[in-house]
């Protein structure tokens, strides 16, 4: 038996959460479980506060409301660099429903947008008033009872953000893996690199060894070589219906090399 509680304010919704509750964003994944009778919760909590869906520019940083949909992201001028990521989520109908906040809680193989947010080092605002980092949120998301209200990101330097999704079905297919990289340059050398993978573990993962190996290097074939050697150190792919762990380990460095060396797809 399921009950659905809808609140018009965030505070009410937050206080309505208990250990049997699940907060529903766009519902694209929760409804699936509900239809198949395998939900682990008894209450669904919703919030209709329109504030939750706004996308604002706050002094150069961009604050995306957790209830903003993938379509909202695609249509927002400040988020042009994230549009290809949002466009890689589902088909048009899913993008009208799936929310940015929901993607943070989407189990593998979903979570391509969260992977981009991880690479962007986004700050996550919670209903408790606290702020947390992406990595911390992803590692404790199972137990989270607080509601994500907004995601706060610093836009990457122009042209220094890259994303690639690998899927077997095109144009819409589930990720075998996806990679997102922020590649700031300083005097012709990489500085402050962040690389994140989806589909290479139970949650989106950063690749700190590869990031360190890229630091201070030029973005060319020789400069990225060491990073490709060590990138697998931080990844833990598993076998699933889409691909084997072996396959993912084999192709991950190949796709990383292409992502780093490509010119055309850079934003």
């Amino acid at each position, binding site marked *: 038996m399921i009950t*659905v509680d809808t609140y018009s304010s965030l505070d009410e919704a937050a206080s309505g959460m208990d250990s049997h509750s699940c907060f529903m964003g766009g519902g*694209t994944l929760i409804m699936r479980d509900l239809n198949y009778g395998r939900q682990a919760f008894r209450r669904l909590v919703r919030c209709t506060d329109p504030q939750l869906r706004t996308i604002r520019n706050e002094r150069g940083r961009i604050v995306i409301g957790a209830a903003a949909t993938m379509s909202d992201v695609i249509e927002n001028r400040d988020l042009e660099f994230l549009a290809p990521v949002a466009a890689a989520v589902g088909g048009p*109908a899913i993008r009208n429903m799936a929310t940015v906040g929901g993607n943070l809680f989407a189990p593998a193989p979903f979570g391509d947008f969260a992977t981009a947010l991880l690479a962007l080092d986004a700050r996550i605002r919670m209903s408790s008033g606290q702020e947390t980092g992406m990595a911390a949120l992803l590692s404790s998301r199972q137990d989270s009872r607080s509601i994500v209200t907004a995601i706060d990101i610093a836009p990457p330097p122009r042209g220094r953000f890259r994303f690639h999704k690998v899927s077997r079905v095109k144009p*819409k297919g589930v990720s075998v893996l996806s990679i997102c990289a922020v590649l700031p340059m300083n005097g012709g050398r990489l500085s402050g690199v962040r690389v994140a993978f989806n589909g290479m573990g139970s949650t989106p993962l950063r690749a700190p060894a590869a990031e360190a190996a890229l630091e201070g290097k030029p973005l060319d074939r020789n400069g990225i070589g060491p990073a490709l050697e060590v990138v697998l150190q931080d990844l833990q792919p598993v076998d699933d219906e889409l691909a084997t762990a072996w396959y993912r380990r084999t192709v991950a460095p190949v796709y990383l090399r292409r992502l780093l060396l490509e010119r055309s797809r850079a934003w």
Partner: protein
Amino acid sequence: MPRTPITLVLNGTERSLFVESGENLLDALRRGIGDLSPKYGCAQGTCGTCSVQVDGRLQLACITLAETLSGRSITTAGGLAEGNELHPLQRSFMENFAAQCGYCTPGMLMAAKSLLDRNPHPRRQEVVEAISGNLCRCTGYEPIIDAILKAAEVMRRRTR
């Protein structure tokens, strides 16, 4: 089982019904109201055959919670024709052989309508993108794409 009364506008007509807690829009439309045009294909948001418009935007009825739709406006393939006057998309699907078993057709039509509502001049690749959430297992994608492009042409001529 808790039941919630809702009133929505289906294809221009106000309808009131009770929905069960947790019920999806697909069941509400089919069993609650009797609009059988959206179909069950997967109940997990992957096949697109239950595609409908909610307030003019494409959504999947099987993963839309019915009780959240009070006051909203729903359009289904069953509401595309006006009486005997078929929508240009319907006519184009007929004339261009864009249906085989017909099971994906209502969803395809809604995805196509959502594209043409926003973009009367789609390129072929945009049509491909627009129906990318809709599977056709008879794999008649090419005639479907042709039919949508031809319908767009007809609709442009009409509005001129």
